[in-house]
C-alpha cells in the first residue's frame, strides 16, 4: 500500500508539473540603436541585398532591424523592401568602408516580435563598389541566435 501511495503522489506531481508548463526561455534584447558613427571616414561602399531565412522570417515585422558590421563597428543599416503582396522581404544594405578596408562583413538581425538577436555565420569580404546578392536573388544569410 505504501508503494501505491508513492506512485500516486509521483503521478500527481507529474500531473501538475507537466500540465501546461512553458518554461523555455531564451535571451532577449532591447531594440538596438544601430547607426554609422563616422560615415565621412568611409568613402567607399559595398551593396548587400539579403533575406532572412524562412523559419524566422515567419515572425518578422516591419520594425525588425538588420545591420552590417566590420569588427564591432556598424557600417551599414538595412532597409526593408517588400513585394506588393508583402510575402517577399529583402533588406538593402549600403556598407561603408575605407580605401584600405580589409575587414570582413557580418550581419546582425534583430527580430522585434521575439526580441531575439541573430548574427550571420559566414563573413563576407568587403569590396569597393562590390555587390552581394540582387533583388531577384537575394542572399539568404545563415543566422545563429546570440
Amino acid at each position, binding site marked *: 500500500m505504501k508503494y*501505491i501511495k508513492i*506512485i*500516486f503522489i509521483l*503521478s*500527481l506531481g*507529474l*500531473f*501538475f508539473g*507537466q*500540465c*501546461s508548463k*512553458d518554461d*523555455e*526561455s*531564451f535571451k532577449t534584447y532591447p531594440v538596438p540603436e544601430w547607426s554609422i558613427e563616422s560615415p565621412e571616414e568611409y568613402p567607399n561602399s559595398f551593396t548587400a541585398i539579403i533575406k532572412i531565412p*524562412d*523559419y*524566422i522570417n*515567419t*515572425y518578422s515585422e516591419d520594425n525588425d532591424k538588420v545591420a552590417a558590421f566590420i569588427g564591432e563597428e556598424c557600417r551599414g543599416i538595412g532597409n526593408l523592401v517588400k513585394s506588393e503582396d508583402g510575402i517577399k522581404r529583402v533588406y538593402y544594405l549600403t556598407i561603408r568602408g575605407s580605401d584600405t578596408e580589409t575587414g570582413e562583413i557580418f550581419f546582425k538581425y534583430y527580430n522585434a516580435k*521575439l526580441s*531575439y538577436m*541573430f548574427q550571420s555565420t559566414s563573413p563576407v569580404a568587403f569590396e569597393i563598389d562590390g555587390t552581394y546578392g540582387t533583388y531577384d536573388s537575394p542572399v539568404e544569410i545563415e543566422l545563429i*541566435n546570440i
Partner: protein
Amino acid sequence: MRKLISFFSIILFSNLFITVSGQVSLDTINNEEVSKLKEIFEPDIFSDNLFVETAIGTQILFSKDVNNLDFTERFTPYLSLSVGKWFSPYWGASIQVQGFALNGFSTLNGLYLADPQTENIYGNNDPVRDYVTIRPDGTYRHFIRYSNINIGFQLSLMNLIKGYDEQNRWDIIPSLGFGYMRVSEYMGIPNTNTISTNFGLKGTYHLNEKIDINIKSQIALIPDQFDGRIAGDIYESYGSISIGVTYFFKKRGFKRVSPPKAPKIVIDTVYQVIKQVDTVYQVIKDTITIEVILPEEEAKILISELDLKFSFDSIQLLDQSLELRIEELATILIKNSDMKLRIIGHTCDIASHEQNVMVGLARAESIAKKLISRGVSASQLTIESKAFDEPLAPNTNEENRAKNRRVQLILE
C-alpha cells in the same frame, strides 16, 4: 491513398490478431477446459460485475516533428475514468473517458488547418505562436488539451486460457475500442473533433472482493489533423501507461448453474412416501411368514400326491402323467443322497397270494427302475411286495380292488 489503406490495415490486423489469439487459445486447450468454457453461468443482475475504474499515469504523443521536443518534455499527465461490466467470465465492455494533456510540436513550415487569417484551410500562421515561446529556430511547442470517449470490448485472457476460476487473482485483459476525441480550444489550438481507435492491455490483481489494482498501457490512433495542424502523416498516435484501481459496485464473479434443487414441499412429500413405504414393509414383514420347505418335506408332499395305480395283473401305470411327478421325486432324491425310499407294491385279491406277491414286487420294481433311469442311486431304494395283505379298501368289489392295485412310497 496508400497511407489510408495502411491505416485501416493496421486496425483490421489488430482485430484479427485479437480474434485469432482467442481462437488459438481455444483450440489449444484440452477437452476438460473446453467443457469449462461451455459451462453455463447463472444470469446476474445488471449491477453485478459492474465496475468503475480510475487510472492515472503518463502519456506521450507520437507525431512528426514532435521529437524536436526534449524527450522528458514529451510526457504529459494521463487520466482515465471508465465504467464497465463483465457480461461473462470471458468478456466485458466499458465506456472510458481519458485525457487530458498532450505535448505536440510545430512543423517547421507551420502548416495549419484552421487559420482564420486566410480563407484556405492551409495556412502558415499558426495561432499557437501567439501563446507559446518561440524558439530561435522558429519552432514551438503545442499544448494540447483533449478528451477521448470510447466504447471498448475487453477479454479475460486468464479465463479464456485457464478456464474460469473464482480464485484467480491475476488477469491480463486486452481491449479494443472506438470513440470520439475532442481537442479543446487552448493556447491557440482550436476545437476539433475526430474519431479514435483505442487498443489497450491491462494487467490486474484482485486485491479483495471489491477492488482490483491494475496497470494499463493504451495506444490511440487518431487522424493527423486532430489538433488542427497538418503534420504530414495520415494518422498520429499517442500511448499511455497508467496505474489504477477498479472498484466493483456489488457482487463480482459468476456462479455456475448447479442441478436444480427440488422445492421443500417436494422433499417433504417424498419423505412422507418413503416413510409410508417403510411402514407397509414392516407390516408385510410382520404378517407374512415365508415357509421354507425342507427337501424331506417337499418329498413327502410329492409322495402323498403320487397316486400310483395299476390295472389288473399289470405293471403299467394307469396315469402316464405321473411320469413328470416321478421325475421331480427323482430330482429330490438325487440332490439328497442320504434320503431313502421304500417302494412297496400292492395288489387286489384276485389269484393266488404267491402270484400277487410277484405282481406287487414287479410293480415296485417298475417304479424303482423309473427312478434309477433318472439318476437315482439304487442304494437309496428298497423294494418289497405286500400282495393283497394290506389292502387300501376291502376287496369286495371292483372299485375297491382297483384302489388296491397300487405302489406305495415311504420316505425313510
